[in-house]
Protein backbone atom coordinates (compact mmCIF):
# COMPACT_ATOMS: atom_id res chain seq x y z
CA UNK A 1 0.00 0.00 0.00
CA UNK A 2 1.37 3.42 -0.94
CA UNK A 3 1.62 6.23 1.58
CA UNK A 4 0.40 9.84 1.00
CA UNK A 5 3.81 11.31 0.03
CA UNK A 6 4.32 8.64 -2.65
CA UNK A 7 0.83 9.14 -4.05
CA UNK A 8 1.13 12.94 -4.07
CA UNK A 9 4.34 12.59 -6.03
CA UNK A 10 2.48 10.54 -8.65
CA UNK A 11 -0.65 12.71 -8.81
CA UNK A 12 0.44 14.96 -11.74
CA UNK A 13 1.31 11.89 -13.84
CA UNK A 14 -1.94 10.24 -12.73
CA UNK A 15 -4.00 13.25 -13.84
CA UNK A 16 -2.33 13.17 -17.25
CA UNK A 17 -2.94 9.42 -17.65
CA UNK A 18 0.78 8.67 -17.85
CA UNK A 19 0.86 5.89 -15.23
CA UNK A 20 0.98 2.22 -16.06
CA UNK A 21 -1.99 0.01 -15.16
CA UNK A 22 -0.42 -1.41 -11.97
CA UNK A 23 0.63 1.96 -10.64
CA UNK A 24 -2.73 3.56 -11.55
CA UNK A 25 -4.62 0.83 -9.62
CA UNK A 26 -2.44 1.35 -6.55
CA UNK A 27 -3.00 5.14 -6.66
CA UNK A 28 -6.76 4.72 -7.10
CA UNK A 29 -6.85 2.24 -4.20
CA UNK A 30 -5.15 4.84 -1.96
CA UNK A 31 -7.40 7.68 -3.17
CA UNK A 32 -10.54 5.74 -2.31
CA UNK A 33 -9.64 5.83 1.36
CA UNK A 34 -7.76 9.16 1.62
CA UNK A 35 -9.78 12.42 1.32
CA UNK A 36 -6.58 14.59 1.55
CA UNK A 37 -5.01 12.98 -1.47
CA UNK A 38 -8.35 12.97 -3.28
CA UNK A 39 -8.60 16.69 -2.69
CA UNK A 40 -5.04 17.03 -4.02
CA UNK A 41 -6.12 15.30 -7.26
CA UNK A 42 -8.99 17.84 -7.62
CA UNK A 43 -6.65 20.76 -7.09
CA UNK A 44 -4.09 19.35 -9.56
CA UNK A 45 -6.83 18.80 -12.13
CA UNK A 46 -8.03 22.39 -11.75
CA UNK A 47 -4.52 23.77 -12.01
CA UNK A 48 -3.84 21.63 -15.09
CA UNK A 49 -7.04 22.86 -16.76
CA UNK A 50 -6.28 26.45 -15.87
CA UNK A 51 -2.74 26.28 -17.25
CA UNK A 52 -3.29 24.05 -20.27
CA UNK A 53 -5.68 26.62 -21.72
CA UNK A 54 -2.85 29.16 -21.77
CA UNK A 55 -0.91 28.01 -24.80
CA UNK A 56 0.87 30.98 -26.31
CA UNK A 57 -0.94 32.85 -29.06
CA UNK A 58 0.25 32.57 -32.61
CA UNK A 59 2.09 35.62 -33.89
CA UNK A 60 0.50 37.82 -36.61
CA UNK A 61 0.01 36.00 -39.92
CA UNK A 62 2.72 37.91 -41.80
CA UNK A 63 5.27 37.37 -39.01
CA UNK A 64 6.84 34.26 -40.55
CA UNK A 65 7.40 36.00 -43.90
CA UNK A 66 10.24 38.05 -42.50
CA UNK A 67 11.54 35.45 -40.04
CA UNK A 68 13.89 33.59 -42.39
CA UNK A 69 15.15 36.79 -44.00
CA UNK A 70 16.08 38.27 -40.63
CA UNK A 71 17.62 35.00 -39.52
CA UNK A 72 19.67 34.81 -42.71
CA UNK A 73 21.04 38.31 -42.16
CA UNK A 74 22.10 37.26 -38.62
CA UNK A 75 23.73 34.01 -39.74
CA UNK A 76 25.54 35.91 -42.51
CA UNK A 77 27.16 38.05 -39.87
CA UNK A 78 28.25 34.87 -38.07
CA UNK A 79 29.69 33.37 -41.23
CA UNK A 80 31.40 36.65 -42.00
CA UNK A 81 33.27 36.47 -38.68
CA UNK A 82 34.13 32.80 -39.25
CA UNK A 83 35.33 33.59 -42.77
CA UNK A 84 37.35 36.50 -41.41
CA UNK A 85 39.11 34.12 -39.01
CA UNK A 86 39.48 31.44 -41.66
CA UNK A 87 40.61 33.65 -44.54
CA UNK A 88 44.29 33.69 -43.54
CA UNK A 89 44.83 29.94 -43.96
CA UNK A 90 42.63 30.13 -47.08
CA UNK A 91 44.82 32.88 -48.56
CA UNK A 92 47.99 30.95 -47.67
CA UNK A 93 46.64 27.80 -49.32
CA UNK A 94 45.72 29.87 -52.37
CA UNK A 95 49.13 31.53 -52.58
CA UNK A 96 50.99 28.23 -52.16
CA UNK A 97 48.66 26.65 -54.73
CA UNK A 98 49.28 29.62 -57.06
CA UNK A 99 53.06 29.33 -56.73
CA UNK A 100 52.91 25.56 -57.35
CA UNK A 101 50.69 26.02 -60.40
CA UNK A 102 52.88 28.87 -61.75
CA UNK A 103 56.05 26.83 -61.18
CA UNK A 104 54.54 23.84 -62.95
CA UNK A 105 53.34 25.96 -65.84
CA UNK A 106 56.79 27.55 -66.29
CA UNK A 107 58.67 24.28 -65.95
CA UNK A 108 60.40 22.68 -68.93
CA UNK A 109 58.29 19.55 -68.35
CA UNK A 110 55.15 21.61 -68.94
CA UNK A 111 56.74 23.17 -72.05
CA UNK A 112 57.42 19.65 -73.39
CA UNK A 113 53.85 18.62 -72.62
CA UNK A 114 52.56 21.77 -74.30
CA UNK A 115 54.73 21.03 -77.37
CA UNK A 116 53.27 17.56 -77.52
CA UNK A 117 49.58 18.27 -76.87
CA UNK A 118 49.38 21.81 -78.30
CA UNK A 119 47.17 24.66 -77.14
CA UNK A 120 43.94 22.84 -78.01
CA UNK A 121 45.10 19.85 -75.96
CA UNK A 122 45.82 22.16 -73.04
CA UNK A 123 42.31 23.60 -73.28
CA UNK A 124 40.87 20.07 -73.29
CA UNK A 125 42.89 19.17 -70.15
CA UNK A 126 41.71 22.39 -68.41
CA UNK A 127 38.13 21.55 -69.42
CA UNK A 128 38.49 18.03 -67.96
CA UNK A 129 39.82 19.43 -64.66
CA UNK A 130 36.91 21.91 -64.56
CA UNK A 131 34.38 19.14 -65.26
CA UNK A 132 35.95 16.94 -62.54
CA UNK A 133 35.62 19.77 -59.99
CA UNK A 134 32.04 20.36 -61.10
CA UNK A 135 31.30 16.66 -60.71
CA UNK A 136 32.65 16.64 -57.12
CA UNK A 137 30.63 19.75 -56.28
CA UNK A 138 27.45 18.39 -57.84
CA UNK A 139 27.84 15.10 -55.97
CA UNK A 140 28.13 16.92 -52.63
CA UNK A 141 25.17 19.10 -53.59
CA UNK A 142 23.06 16.03 -54.40
CA UNK A 143 23.87 14.57 -50.98
CA UNK A 144 22.44 17.67 -49.33
CA UNK A 145 19.34 17.58 -51.52
CA UNK A 146 18.85 13.88 -50.81
CA UNK A 147 19.02 14.60 -47.08
CA UNK A 148 16.01 16.88 -47.11
CA UNK A 149 13.61 14.09 -46.23
CA UNK A 150 10.94 14.22 -43.55
CA UNK A 151 12.35 11.60 -41.20
CA UNK A 152 14.82 12.54 -38.48
CA UNK A 153 17.52 10.07 -39.53
CA UNK A 154 18.20 12.03 -42.73
CA UNK A 155 19.31 14.97 -40.62
CA UNK A 156 22.42 13.01 -39.70
CA UNK A 157 23.38 12.69 -43.36
CA UNK A 158 22.56 16.33 -43.90
CA UNK A 159 24.92 17.47 -41.16
CA UNK A 160 27.70 15.27 -42.54
CA UNK A 161 27.19 16.33 -46.13
CA UNK A 162 26.84 20.04 -45.62
CA UNK A 163 30.47 20.90 -44.67
CA UNK A 164 31.76 18.97 -47.70
CA UNK A 165 29.55 20.92 -50.01
CA UNK A 166 30.46 24.19 -48.33
CA UNK A 167 34.21 23.66 -48.23
CA UNK A 168 35.19 21.99 -51.47
CA UNK A 169 34.19 24.63 -53.98
CA UNK A 170 35.66 27.71 -52.25
CA UNK A 171 39.00 25.97 -51.60
CA UNK A 172 39.24 24.61 -55.14
CA UNK A 173 38.20 27.87 -56.76
CA UNK A 174 40.53 29.95 -54.55
CA UNK A 175 43.55 27.78 -55.42
CA UNK A 176 42.63 27.68 -59.08
CA UNK A 177 41.97 31.40 -59.53
CA UNK A 178 44.90 32.64 -57.48
CA UNK A 179 47.16 30.23 -59.38
CA UNK A 180 45.78 31.39 -62.71
CA UNK A 181 46.01 35.04 -61.65
CA UNK A 182 49.67 34.57 -60.69
CA UNK A 183 50.37 32.73 -63.95
CA UNK A 184 48.62 35.26 -66.20
CA UNK A 185 50.23 38.25 -64.51
CA UNK A 186 53.75 36.73 -64.68
CA UNK A 187 53.28 35.67 -68.32
CA UNK A 188 51.92 39.10 -69.25
CA UNK A 189 54.76 40.88 -67.46
CA UNK A 190 57.48 38.74 -69.04
CA UNK A 191 55.89 38.96 -72.48
CA UNK A 192 55.74 42.76 -72.41
CA UNK A 193 59.54 42.96 -72.44
CA UNK A 194 59.83 46.39 -74.02
CA UNK A 195 57.47 48.14 -71.61
CA UNK A 196 59.33 50.05 -68.86
CA UNK A 197 59.91 47.76 -65.86
CA UNK A 198 57.96 49.79 -63.27
CA UNK A 199 54.93 50.05 -65.55
CA UNK A 200 55.11 46.31 -66.12
CA UNK A 201 55.21 45.59 -62.38
CA UNK A 202 52.27 47.92 -61.65
CA UNK A 203 50.13 46.49 -64.45
CA UNK A 204 51.02 42.89 -63.49
CA UNK A 205 50.00 43.62 -59.87
CA UNK A 206 46.71 45.07 -61.13
CA UNK A 207 46.11 41.92 -63.20
CA UNK A 208 46.79 39.70 -60.17
CA UNK A 209 44.74 41.84 -57.78
CA UNK A 210 41.82 42.05 -60.20
CA UNK A 211 41.51 38.27 -60.49
CA UNK A 212 42.37 37.57 -56.83
CA UNK A 213 39.91 40.11 -55.36
CA UNK A 214 37.15 39.05 -57.74
CA UNK A 215 37.73 35.41 -56.76
CA UNK A 216 37.73 36.29 -53.05
CA UNK A 217 34.45 38.22 -53.32
CA UNK A 218 32.77 35.31 -55.11
CA UNK A 219 34.15 32.85 -52.55
CA UNK A 220 32.99 34.90 -49.55
CA UNK A 221 29.60 35.34 -51.18
CA UNK A 222 29.38 31.60 -51.77
CA UNK A 223 30.27 30.76 -48.17
CA UNK A 224 27.79 33.28 -46.81
CA UNK A 225 25.03 31.76 -48.88
CA UNK A 226 23.82 28.33 -47.77
CA UNK A 227 24.98 26.48 -50.87
CA UNK A 228 24.02 27.00 -54.50
CA UNK A 229 26.48 28.22 -57.11
CA UNK A 230 29.22 30.84 -56.59
CA UNK A 231 27.95 34.00 -58.25
CA UNK A 232 29.66 37.22 -59.31
CA UNK A 233 28.62 40.57 -57.90
CA UNK A 234 28.93 43.95 -59.68
CA UNK A 235 32.07 44.62 -57.61
CA UNK A 236 33.69 41.29 -58.47
CA UNK A 237 32.85 41.90 -62.16
CA UNK A 238 34.47 45.34 -61.90
CA UNK A 239 37.66 43.71 -60.57
CA UNK A 240 37.67 41.17 -63.42
CA UNK A 241 37.27 44.08 -65.87
CA UNK A 242 40.15 45.87 -64.14
CA UNK A 243 42.33 42.77 -64.54
CA UNK A 244 41.44 42.45 -68.22
CA UNK A 245 41.95 46.18 -68.80
CA UNK A 246 45.42 45.96 -67.23
CA UNK A 247 46.18 42.87 -69.29
CA UNK A 248 45.03 44.49 -72.54
CA UNK A 249 46.90 47.74 -71.92
CA UNK A 250 50.06 45.75 -71.21
CA UNK A 251 49.66 43.81 -74.46
CA UNK A 252 48.66 46.81 -76.57
CA UNK A 253 51.56 48.82 -75.20
CA UNK A 254 53.97 46.01 -76.04
CA UNK A 255 52.50 45.65 -79.54
CA UNK A 256 52.76 49.36 -80.30
CA UNK A 257 56.42 49.39 -79.13
CA UNK A 258 57.18 46.26 -81.18
CA UNK A 259 55.68 47.93 -84.27
CA UNK A 260 57.70 51.11 -83.74
CA UNK A 261 60.94 49.19 -83.11
CA UNK A 262 60.52 46.79 -86.04
CA UNK A 263 59.56 49.50 -88.58
CA UNK A 264 63.22 50.28 -89.73
CA UNK A 265 63.91 46.55 -90.09
CA UNK A 266 60.89 46.13 -92.36
CA UNK A 267 61.87 49.20 -94.43
CA UNK A 268 65.38 47.80 -94.75
CA UNK A 269 64.02 44.54 -96.23
CA UNK A 270 61.81 46.43 -98.69
CA UNK A 271 64.66 48.80 -99.66
CA UNK A 272 66.96 45.83 -100.28
CA UNK A 273 64.40 44.36 -102.72
CA UNK A 274 64.01 47.75 -104.45
CA UNK A 275 67.84 48.09 -104.70
CA UNK A 276 68.20 44.59 -106.15
CA UNK A 277 65.52 45.50 -108.69
CA UNK A 278 67.85 48.31 -109.82
CA UNK A 279 66.12 51.32 -108.27
CA UNK A 280 69.00 52.67 -106.18
CA UNK A 281 67.61 56.17 -105.72
CA UNK A 282 64.29 54.94 -104.29
CA UNK A 283 66.08 52.50 -101.97
CA UNK A 284 68.29 55.30 -100.59
CA UNK A 285 65.24 57.60 -100.19
CA UNK A 286 63.35 54.83 -98.30
CA UNK A 287 66.30 54.21 -95.96
CA UNK A 288 66.87 57.96 -95.29
CA UNK A 289 63.16 58.43 -94.58
CA UNK A 290 63.10 55.52 -92.11
CA UNK A 291 66.25 56.80 -90.33
CA UNK A 292 64.54 60.18 -89.96
CA UNK A 293 61.23 58.71 -88.74
CA UNK A 294 62.58 56.12 -86.26
CA UNK A 295 65.93 57.47 -85.02
CA UNK A 296 65.46 55.80 -81.57
CA UNK A 297 64.81 52.25 -82.75
CA UNK A 298 67.74 49.86 -82.28
CA UNK A 299 66.83 48.35 -85.70
CA UNK A 300 67.74 51.65 -87.41
CA UNK A 301 71.37 50.41 -87.53
CA UNK A 302 70.27 47.93 -90.21
CA UNK A 303 69.25 50.91 -92.41
CA UNK A 304 72.68 52.59 -91.97
CA UNK A 305 74.37 49.29 -92.80
CA UNK A 306 72.45 48.84 -96.09
CA UNK A 307 72.90 52.54 -96.94
CA UNK A 308 76.71 52.25 -96.61
CA UNK A 309 76.68 49.04 -98.66
CA UNK A 310 74.67 50.70 -101.50
CA UNK A 311 77.06 53.71 -101.59
CA UNK A 312 80.05 51.36 -101.59
CA UNK A 313 78.59 49.31 -104.45
CA UNK A 314 77.95 52.50 -106.41
CA UNK A 315 81.61 53.53 -106.00
CA UNK A 316 80.93 56.46 -103.66
CA UNK A 317 83.35 55.71 -100.74
CA UNK A 318 82.96 59.13 -99.09
CA UNK A 319 79.16 58.80 -98.78
CA UNK A 320 79.60 55.18 -97.69
CA UNK A 321 82.00 56.14 -94.89
CA UNK A 322 79.65 58.96 -93.90
CA UNK A 323 76.72 56.49 -93.67
CA UNK A 324 78.77 53.99 -91.60
CA UNK A 325 80.00 56.83 -89.38
CA UNK A 326 76.45 58.10 -88.78
CA UNK A 327 75.39 54.53 -87.95
CA UNK A 328 78.13 54.15 -85.34
CA UNK A 329 77.18 57.53 -83.81
CA UNK A 330 73.56 56.35 -83.66
CA UNK A 331 74.70 53.09 -81.98
CA UNK A 332 76.63 54.97 -79.30
CA UNK A 333 73.75 57.39 -78.76
CA UNK A 334 71.23 54.57 -78.43
CA UNK A 335 73.45 52.77 -75.90
CA UNK A 336 73.93 55.93 -73.86
CA UNK A 337 70.29 57.13 -73.98
CA UNK A 338 68.10 54.09 -74.60
CA UNK A 339 64.59 55.08 -75.64
CA UNK A 340 63.21 51.56 -75.21
CA UNK A 341 63.69 48.81 -72.64
CA UNK A 342 66.28 46.68 -74.54
CA UNK A 343 66.16 42.91 -74.23
CA UNK A 344 69.31 40.75 -74.53
CA UNK A 345 68.20 40.01 -78.09
CA UNK A 346 68.06 43.75 -78.88
CA UNK A 347 71.51 44.34 -77.43
CA UNK A 348 72.97 41.36 -79.32
CA UNK A 349 71.39 42.49 -82.58
CA UNK A 350 72.69 46.06 -82.10
CA UNK A 351 76.22 44.75 -81.40
CA UNK A 352 76.10 42.59 -84.53
CA UNK A 353 74.96 45.41 -86.84
CA UNK A 354 77.44 47.86 -85.23
CA UNK A 355 80.25 45.33 -85.97
CA UNK A 356 79.14 45.35 -89.64
CA UNK A 357 79.31 49.17 -89.58
CA UNK A 358 82.86 49.07 -88.15
CA UNK A 359 83.76 46.51 -90.78
CA UNK A 360 82.60 48.99 -93.42
CA UNK A 361 84.90 51.61 -91.93
CA UNK A 362 87.79 49.10 -91.88
CA UNK A 363 88.09 49.07 -88.10
CA UNK A 364 88.72 45.32 -87.65
CA UNK A 365 89.60 45.53 -83.95
CA UNK A 366 86.34 47.22 -82.91
CA UNK A 367 84.31 44.95 -85.20
CA UNK A 368 85.85 41.83 -83.56
CA UNK A 369 85.18 43.26 -80.13
CA UNK A 370 81.48 43.74 -80.94
CA UNK A 371 81.23 40.27 -82.52
CA UNK A 372 82.59 38.79 -79.29
CA UNK A 373 80.04 40.84 -77.33
CA UNK A 374 77.32 39.47 -79.60
CA UNK A 375 78.57 35.90 -78.99
CA UNK A 376 78.54 36.50 -75.23
CA UNK A 377 74.96 37.82 -75.35
CA UNK A 378 73.90 34.83 -77.44
CA UNK A 379 75.15 32.60 -74.63
CA UNK A 380 72.90 34.33 -72.04
CA UNK A 381 70.00 32.14 -70.95
CA UNK A 382 67.12 34.46 -71.85
CA UNK A 383 68.43 35.27 -75.32
Amino acid at each position, binding site marked *: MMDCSEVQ*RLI*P*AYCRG*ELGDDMRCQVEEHLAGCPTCHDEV*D*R*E*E*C*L*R*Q*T*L*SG*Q*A*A*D*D*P*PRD*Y*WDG*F*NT*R*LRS*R*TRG*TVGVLWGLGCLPGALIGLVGGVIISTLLFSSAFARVLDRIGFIGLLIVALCIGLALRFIYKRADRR*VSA*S*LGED*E*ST*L*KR*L*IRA*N*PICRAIFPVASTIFWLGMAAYISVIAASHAEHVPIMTRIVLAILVFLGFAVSCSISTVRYIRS*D*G*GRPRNTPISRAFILLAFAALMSLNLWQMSIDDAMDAPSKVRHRAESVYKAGNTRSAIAMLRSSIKKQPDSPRVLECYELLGKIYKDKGQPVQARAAYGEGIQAYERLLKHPHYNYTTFDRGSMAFHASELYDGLGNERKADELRRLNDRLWAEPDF
Partner: protein
Amino acid sequence: MEAFDALVERYRRGIYRLAFAMTQDHEVADDLSQEVFVQLFRRIRQLRSPESVGAWLRRILVNLCIKHSRRVRHVSIEDEGANPEPITTDTPFVAAEKSMVRDRVRQAILELDPRERAVVLLYYIEGLKQVEIADVLGRPVGTVWSRLSSARGKLRVRLADVIAGTRDGVEKA
Protein backbone atom coordinates in the same frame (compact mmCIF):
# COMPACT_ATOMS: atom_id res chain seq x y z
CA MET B 1 15.11 24.51 -50.32
CA GLU B 2 18.33 24.65 -48.37
CA ALA B 3 19.20 22.32 -45.51
CA PHE B 4 19.28 24.95 -42.78
CA ASP B 5 15.98 26.46 -43.92
CA ALA B 6 14.38 23.01 -43.66
CA LEU B 7 15.37 22.77 -39.99
CA VAL B 8 14.17 26.30 -39.26
CA GLU B 9 10.87 25.65 -41.01
CA ARG B 10 10.29 22.54 -38.92
CA TYR B 11 11.02 23.96 -35.45
CA ARG B 12 10.47 27.73 -35.58
CA ARG B 13 6.76 27.66 -34.62
CA GLY B 14 7.26 25.58 -31.46
CA ILE B 15 10.33 27.57 -30.48
CA TYR B 16 8.57 30.90 -30.91
CA ARG B 17 5.54 29.78 -28.87
CA LEU B 18 7.71 28.58 -26.00
CA ALA B 19 9.79 31.77 -26.14
CA PHE B 20 6.62 33.86 -26.00
CA ALA B 21 5.26 31.79 -23.11
CA MET B 22 8.53 32.28 -21.24
CA THR B 23 8.82 36.01 -21.81
CA GLN B 24 5.28 37.23 -22.64
CA ASP B 25 6.86 39.72 -25.02
CA HIS B 26 6.60 39.40 -28.79
CA GLU B 27 9.77 41.39 -29.53
CA VAL B 28 11.84 39.44 -27.01
CA ALA B 29 10.36 36.11 -28.14
CA ASP B 30 11.24 36.97 -31.73
CA ASP B 31 14.77 37.95 -30.78
CA LEU B 32 15.36 34.83 -28.67
CA SER B 33 13.86 32.49 -31.31
CA GLN B 34 16.21 33.99 -33.88
CA GLU B 35 19.12 33.59 -31.49
CA VAL B 36 18.24 29.90 -31.01
CA PHE B 37 18.58 29.28 -34.75
CA VAL B 38 21.75 31.36 -34.96
CA GLN B 39 23.20 29.09 -32.26
CA LEU B 40 21.99 26.07 -34.23
CA PHE B 41 23.74 27.43 -37.33
CA ARG B 42 26.97 27.98 -35.42
CA ARG B 43 27.03 24.68 -33.56
CA ILE B 44 25.24 22.28 -35.89
CA ARG B 45 28.40 20.21 -36.27
CA GLN B 46 28.42 19.56 -32.51
CA LEU B 47 25.03 17.87 -32.75
CA ARG B 48 25.77 14.16 -32.45
CA SER B 49 22.24 12.73 -32.34
CA PRO B 50 19.93 14.49 -34.79
CA GLU B 51 16.89 12.73 -33.25
CA SER B 52 17.21 15.07 -30.26
CA VAL B 53 17.44 18.29 -32.26
CA GLY B 54 14.08 19.47 -30.87
CA ALA B 55 15.19 18.96 -27.25
CA TRP B 56 18.50 20.60 -28.08
CA LEU B 57 16.78 23.70 -29.48
CA ARG B 58 14.49 23.91 -26.43
CA ARG B 59 17.48 23.66 -24.12
CA ILE B 60 19.20 26.53 -25.96
CA LEU B 61 15.99 28.55 -25.74
CA VAL B 62 15.47 27.91 -22.02
CA ASN B 63 19.07 28.91 -21.29
CA LEU B 64 18.65 32.08 -23.36
CA CYS B 65 15.39 32.89 -21.55
CA ILE B 66 17.06 32.41 -18.16
CA LYS B 67 19.89 34.72 -19.19
CA HIS B 68 17.35 37.25 -20.46
CA SER B 69 15.39 37.09 -17.20
CA ARG B 70 18.55 37.83 -15.22
CA ARG B 71 19.04 40.99 -17.27
CA VAL B 72 15.37 42.10 -17.08
CA ARG B 73 14.45 41.28 -13.49
CA HIS B 74 10.70 41.65 -13.49
CA VAL B 75 8.36 42.48 -16.30
CA SER B 76 4.62 42.82 -15.93
CA ILE B 77 2.48 41.96 -18.92
CA GLU B 78 0.79 45.37 -18.52
CA ASP B 79 4.15 46.92 -19.40
CA GLU B 80 4.08 45.80 -22.99
CA GLY B 81 1.49 46.81 -25.51
CA ALA B 82 2.98 45.53 -28.73
CA ASN B 83 1.94 41.88 -28.33
CA PRO B 84 -0.36 40.53 -31.00
CA GLU B 85 -4.02 40.20 -29.97
CA PRO B 86 -5.41 36.68 -30.33
CA ILE B 87 -8.20 36.15 -32.84
CA THR B 88 -11.49 35.34 -31.00
CA THR B 89 -15.15 34.58 -31.80
CA ASP B 90 -16.44 35.10 -28.21
CA THR B 91 -18.92 37.81 -27.16
CA PRO B 92 -17.25 40.97 -25.78
CA PHE B 93 -18.16 40.06 -22.18
CA VAL B 94 -16.87 36.47 -22.38
CA ALA B 95 -13.81 37.65 -24.28
CA ALA B 96 -13.04 40.27 -21.60
CA GLU B 97 -13.44 37.70 -18.85
CA LYS B 98 -11.20 35.19 -20.64
CA SER B 99 -8.66 37.89 -21.31
CA MET B 100 -8.59 38.82 -17.62
CA VAL B 101 -8.10 35.18 -16.56
CA ARG B 102 -5.40 34.74 -19.18
CA ASP B 103 -3.56 37.84 -17.99
CA ARG B 104 -3.73 36.65 -14.36
CA VAL B 105 -2.33 33.23 -15.26
CA ARG B 106 0.38 34.66 -17.45
CA GLN B 107 1.39 37.17 -14.80
CA ALA B 108 1.55 34.37 -12.20
CA ILE B 109 3.75 32.26 -14.50
CA LEU B 110 5.91 35.26 -15.30
CA GLU B 111 6.50 35.89 -11.59
CA LEU B 112 7.99 32.43 -11.12
CA ASP B 113 11.72 31.88 -11.05
CA PRO B 114 12.84 31.36 -14.72
CA ARG B 115 13.88 27.75 -14.02
CA GLU B 116 10.52 26.94 -12.44
CA ARG B 117 8.74 28.82 -15.21
CA ALA B 118 10.52 26.68 -17.82
CA VAL B 119 9.48 23.46 -16.03
CA VAL B 120 5.85 24.60 -15.66
CA LEU B 121 5.59 25.60 -19.33
CA LEU B 122 7.23 22.44 -20.60
CA TYR B 123 5.06 20.27 -18.34
CA TYR B 124 1.62 21.89 -18.47
CA ILE B 125 1.64 23.73 -21.79
CA GLU B 126 4.08 21.82 -23.99
CA GLY B 127 2.83 18.55 -22.49
CA LEU B 128 6.29 17.00 -21.98
CA LYS B 129 6.86 14.21 -19.45
CA GLN B 130 9.20 14.80 -16.52
CA VAL B 131 11.87 12.58 -18.09
CA GLU B 132 11.68 14.59 -21.31
CA ILE B 133 11.92 17.86 -19.38
CA ALA B 134 15.00 16.48 -17.61
CA ASP B 135 16.48 15.76 -21.05
CA VAL B 136 15.68 19.27 -22.33
CA LEU B 137 17.08 21.01 -19.27
CA GLY B 138 20.02 18.64 -18.82
CA ARG B 139 19.07 18.12 -15.16
CA PRO B 140 18.10 15.00 -13.12
CA VAL B 141 14.42 14.02 -12.94
CA GLY B 142 14.50 14.68 -9.17
CA THR B 143 15.43 18.32 -9.78
CA VAL B 144 12.63 18.66 -12.32
CA TRP B 145 10.20 17.18 -9.79
CA SER B 146 11.23 19.51 -6.97
CA ARG B 147 11.02 22.58 -9.26
CA LEU B 148 7.63 21.48 -10.51
CA SER B 149 6.42 20.87 -7.00
CA SER B 150 7.64 24.26 -5.79
CA ALA B 151 6.14 26.07 -8.81
CA ARG B 152 2.85 24.24 -8.36
CA GLY B 153 2.60 25.41 -4.75
CA LYS B 154 3.26 29.04 -5.72
CA LEU B 155 0.76 28.96 -8.57
CA ARG B 156 -1.98 27.51 -6.36
CA VAL B 157 -1.58 30.37 -3.92
CA ARG B 158 -1.38 33.11 -6.56
CA LEU B 159 -4.20 31.71 -8.69
CA ALA B 160 -6.46 30.52 -5.84
CA ASP B 161 -9.53 32.47 -7.07
CA VAL B 162 -8.96 31.54 -10.74
CA ILE B 163 -8.61 27.86 -9.81
CA ALA B 164 -11.77 28.11 -7.67
CA GLY B 165 -13.58 29.56 -10.72
CA THR B 166 -12.37 26.66 -12.83
CA ARG B 167 -13.52 24.17 -10.16
CA ASP B 168 -17.00 25.79 -10.10
CA GLY B 169 -17.14 25.53 -13.86
CA VAL B 170 -16.15 21.88 -13.75
CA GLU B 171 -18.73 21.10 -11.03
CA LYS B 172 -21.51 22.92 -12.93
CA ALA B 173 -20.59 20.96 -16.05
